[in-house]
Each structure stands twice: as C-alpha cells, then as structure tokens.
C-alpha cells in the first residue's frame, strides 16, 4: 500500500505549542512516526548561568506556565542539596500545598484538553470551570494564579496567614464533589471507554525501557513517583498513596491523573491542618560553596531534574534542566505504531506533553559530529536580531555584554 506522510504540526489545533510530528500512514493506519522539536528554544540554561542563585527561581518558573512550581522546586532542592541545609517544617508544608495545587490544576487542564481532542467540548469546559476554583485558591494563597514566586533556595518567600489557611481549607474541601462528578462522568461513559481503552498501549516493559515518567509510567503499572521514592521532605510525614493503573492505554493515563487529584486534595488538607504555629519559613542560606547538587521533583507530568554546579560565586556555574516530556516523547515509537490517525492524535496528547520545557538545543553537523552553533553563536544571533528590530523601529539598541 502507498505510504503518505500526514503532518501534525508545527501549527495544529491539537498542539498548544509548535512541534512537528510526521505520521507515515497507509490508509488511516500509522506505520512510522518522526518527531521534530526545536521550534521553541529559549536558552534558559545559559540565561540561568548569568543570574544570581536567588534570581534563578524567577527564571525557571517561566520554563513552563503549568509546571511553574515544579521547576523552582527541583532547582531549590538542587541548591539545598549543594549547600546541605535543612528546611524548616512550616516551609516544607507550604511547599507541599503550592505543589499539589499546581498538580490539580495541571491535571484538570489536561482532562479538559483531552476532552477537546476527542471532540468532547463539554468535558473541556467543565474541567476548566472547576480548574478555575483551584486557580482562585492559588491566587488567594500565593498572590498569583500561575507563576507563584513562592520558592527560594532554603525555604519559601511568603508565609500563609490564618485567613488564607481557612480559605484554602474551605475551598479545597468544596472541590472534592465537582471533581468526583467529573471523574465519574468520564470513567462511566461507554463512548469514552470505546474511544480510549486499548488505545496506544505502552506495556510495563516498554515504560521501563524508555524510562517513561509520571502518569505515563504509572499508567503502565510502573509505580515511580519521586515524592514517594526519594522521599521528599514534607511529603514523607503525610498519608497518601501512589496511583497506579496496569493497562498502559490512554484511558489508564487519564484515570491516573483524575485519581491523583483526590490524593492532592488530601495532601493539601493534611498539610494545611498540620502547619506548625509560627516559626521560620526560610533556612537563610547566606552563600553557596563550590560543589554540585541535584534536585528531583515529581511534576504533574513526571520527574523534573535540575543539576547545579557552583564555583563558589553568587551564580550557578552550570545549570542543567531536564523536563519529563524529554523522556516521555520517545515512548510514541512504542505506543503509536499500528494505530489510526484519530488515535495517534490522542496518544500524543496522552503524555501531557510540554515541549517548550523540553527544548535544549544543540545543532550538530551530521557528517563530522561537530557542534556548529555554540552558545556564543546563539547569543550573537539573538543580539543581532534585537539590534535589527530596534533599528527598524528607529530606536537605539541597548548595549550587550557579549563576553561569555
């Protein structure tokens, strides 16, 4: 049969971000798939190496609008690992609250998008309506709906007062009922079962082989969760369980996310109730000694990994970021082949991909394996572009320090 290439992206209603899937199809069946990313590189790691230790959380928060707590969390854990300090109990629990609020809103966002992808716009709108309450709680507790700016190496920036804690507890308890309604509506819908069950199966072995992370691995029966495995401060004193489903299909991944929302609600309740009265919220790190540290945190999409290296100055000498989509992306090779186009669209969405988080660039000459665009070249390209735009607008371009 003749093979046709069906493009998904770079611009496609299915994708919130630009990326390009090439589907090689025979009729409606996909026989091979290529993924091209790299439309969204922003040079975060390099930028981070020019900021002080305290400024970096502001930057890494902007790696991803949805995981805007997970990246700072992993970064702070990395710095704390380097420094070797203990975090005050109150700060640990405040971190748990913010992180779990983020998990619920991220999962509800995904449920809504998944509904939209299968043409079920009612689920989309309802999930996002309930997500709105979570964002209101976030706003009340942290001051922002997203990009909470709560974390700093050594603790948190802002404390919760009594009124905020009461508000958070009251609203989060309210949330259980509508999320239960949504979950039941989705889990009991026969058409959704027909559409999602047995689609894009990632077996347990494949999930381990590809090092799949987060709900993608937990949907395939691999109980990996950094919060539980590490275990992280704050989480280890609270009662909760890792949600695992065995089937590995799109439906299982959805079920994992929906059920995780209830675990998160329970975690938030426990953390808010058990917040110790008063006390410090910051370990007050004065300086960062030479050395290196790693931070791992379970973002809604899977494990986020940050590595920092210090030469004793006030900035990271090297900062490496790895987002979960980087690991989950190659699983498409296992889960998409043999499926129809209608299903592949869903499977690609089922890992809850976040491409702009993933993108770290290295342009390599295929023939001699040499890097042809180095950091210096990229910065120069960027500066030149800004200069040319400013010139067009008739403004004086700012002076840049080109030394790297």
């Amino acid at each position, binding site marked *: 049969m003749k093979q*046709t*290439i*069906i*493009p998904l992206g770079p611009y*496609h*209603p*299915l994708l919130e971000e630009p990326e390009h899937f090439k589907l090689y*199809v025979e*009729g*409606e069946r996909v026989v091979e798939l290529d993924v091209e990313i790299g439309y969204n590189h922003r040079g975060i790691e390099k930028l981070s190496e020019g900021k002080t230790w305290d400024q970096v959380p502001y930057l890494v928060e902007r790696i991803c609008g949805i995981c805007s707590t997970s990246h700072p969390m992993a970064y702070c854990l990395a710095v704390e690992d380097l420094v070797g300090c203990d975090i005050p109990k109150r700060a640990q629990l405040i971190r748990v609250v913010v992180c779990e609020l983020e998990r619920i809103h991220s999962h509800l966002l995904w449920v809504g998008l998944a*509904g*939209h*992808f*299968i*043409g*079920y*716009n*009612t*689920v*989309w*709108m*309802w999930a996002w*309506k309930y997500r709105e309450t979570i964002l209101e709680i976030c706003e009340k507790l942290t001051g922002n709906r997203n990009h909470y700016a709560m974390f700093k190496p050594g603790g948190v920036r802002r404390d919760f007062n009594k009124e905020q804690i009461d508000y958070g507890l009251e609203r989060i308890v309210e949330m259980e009922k509508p999320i239960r309604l949504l979950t039941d509506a989705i889990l009991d*819908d026969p*058409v*959704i079962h*027909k*559409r999602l069950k047995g689609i894009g199966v990632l077996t347990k072995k494949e999930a381990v082989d590809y090092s799949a992370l987060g709900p993608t691995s937990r949907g395939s029966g691999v109980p990996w969760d950094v919060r539980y495995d590490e275990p992280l401060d704050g989480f280890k004193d609270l009662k909760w369980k890792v949600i695992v489903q065995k089937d590995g299909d799109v439906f299982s991944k959805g079920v994992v996310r929906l059920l995780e929302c209830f675990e998160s609600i329970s975690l938030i309740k426990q953390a808010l109730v058990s917040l110790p009265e008063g006390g410090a919220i910051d370990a007050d790190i004065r300086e960062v000694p030479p050395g290196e540290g790693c931070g791992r945190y379970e973002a809604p999409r899977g494990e986020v990994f940050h590595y920092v290296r210090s030469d004793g100055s006030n900035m990271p000498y090297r900062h490496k970021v790895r987002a979960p989509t980087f690991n989950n992306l190659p699983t498409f090779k296992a889960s998409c082949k043999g499926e*129809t*186009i*209608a*299903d592949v*669209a869903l499977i690609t969405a089922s890992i809850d991909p976040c491409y702009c988080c993933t993108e770290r660039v290295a342009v390599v000459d295929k023939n001699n394996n040499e890097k042809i665009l180095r950091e210096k070249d990229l910065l120069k390209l960027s500066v030149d572009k800004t200069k040319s735009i400013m010139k067009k607008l008739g403004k004086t371009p700012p002076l840049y320090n080109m030394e790297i």
Partner: protein
Amino acid sequence: MKLLFYYLIFPGFIFASVIGLLTVWLDRKVSARVQWRQGPPWYQGFADIGKLLYKEVIIPEEAFGSGFIAAPLFGLASVVLAVTILCVSFFSMSEGFIGDIIVVWYLFAIPAIALIYIGSTSGNPLSSVGVSREIKLLLSYDLPMIIIIVMMASKAGSFSIQSIMDWQRINGSNISNWYGIISFAVAIFCIQAKLGRVPFDLPEAETELGSGILMELSGGVLAAYELSKAIMLFGLPMFLIILFWGKGIIGGILLYLLIMVLLILIKNTNPRVRIDHAMKYFWGWMSGAAILAGILAYFGV
C-alpha cells in the same frame, strides 16, 4: 414565476437561510450555556457568512479552479431545492410528485459529494483523509435511513411526500407507534451524521485533521458551504417532521424544537467516534433497529 418565488424567497433560499442561521445560533447558544460559556449574539451566523463573503477565495494550485468554486454552490443550490420541495408540500402549496421523498434525500447528499470532490482535488493530505472518512460515513448512515424511508413510503403506499402526510392525517402520526419511535431514534442519529456534527464530525475532526475536508475552503466558497449546512440544519429536521408527524404547523414547530434539543444533547454529551466505530454502529445497531421497526410496522404495532 411562482416557482422562482418558491425557490428564491419563500420557502426557499431566503426563508430557509434565515431559519437555518437562527437555528445555528440556537445550537451554538444552548451548547455554550451547557458548557458554562456566554455564547454568541443572535446575528452571529449572519455575521459569519457576511464576513466570509468579502474574504479572498484562495484556490489551491492543484485544484481545478472553476470546479472548486462551482461545487459548493452546486451543493447550496441542491439543498435549497430540497428544502423548497419539502416545505411546498408541508405548507400544502403544491401537490409534489411521485418519488419526491427519495429525490429530496439524495439532494441532501449533494453538499457531501461536492465536499468530496473539493477535498480530493485540493491535494492536501489531511483533506484526503477527510474525504475517505466522508465517503465511508455517507455510505454508513444511508443504509438505515433508506430502510426507514422505504418503510414509511410502503406504509403510505406511495413514495410521495404528500401521500405520506395524508396517510398520517388519516391514520395518526407515525411517531405515535412503537415502530415510529424506534425509527425516529435511528433517524435522529442519521441526520446527526449527515450534518457532520459531533460525534460524527469525522471528516472535519478539528483536533485530528485540522478541519480536514474543509481545510482548503476559504472566503465565499466556505460561506456557500456553511450556508448549505445551516439550511440543512433546518431542512433535515423538516424531513423528519414530514416522515413522522405530517400534520399541523404548531405540532411541527414543537417537534422541530424537540429534534433540535435532541441534536444539541447528542452533540454535547458525546466524544467523537472513530470511523470504524461509526460504520459498525450504523450498519449494525442502527440498521438492525431500522429493520426491527420495519417488522413492527408490518404488524402495525
């Protein structure tokens, strides 16, 4: 002259467009309220068509230019003709002719065939996937619907709209019997598919194919297609009213609203199905139900 008036003004083009576009608004507004959204103002459908009309029409290089523009207009003309034949009989403005019910059903198929022509000549790979889905869908929902039409016609003893309506005036509406209720349910799903609405919006499938079969349509050509779809949203429920109710304008309007409620309900409570599911569904369950209704009708239940 009278025929031209029927075709262009009442109950043809102008009347059907206005009612159709208002129905589109009703559909969008109710869907929006179901989804906790505000929804568009009542004139949104007219504004959309108006806007499209003064946009540039872009014809893909590979397409055959005049055919590309003519096909949707041809589809629009057929739909208007179908609605005119239906309404003229419904409002007892004319006698109609033998076999008009079959003619009307196939006139409603022409926009789909026009789309298939456009999609396959446009050279776009996503459109071609949409085309293959549209063909399969067209074949699948036609079978149960034809069974129902034949059943109703054989009850009335003639393939003419007028005689089907007359039969119901004397013997009571089809929908008041069990066979009528079953076949009405089947017909609702068939027209949902014919209108290309969720869960049967496979040829367009925004999030899979990015509008698929419609992808290369633009400007006035797209407006013609949208308008024919709006008119179908008036025409196809009208078709069901004639098949299942057949008498009285007030009852007809109520049934029209009931059909719209069902169509909107189905649209908002279902995800998109896959094409193989849709085919199995129509050729299996739906055709089975239509045959069952036929058997019941034979025994007069």
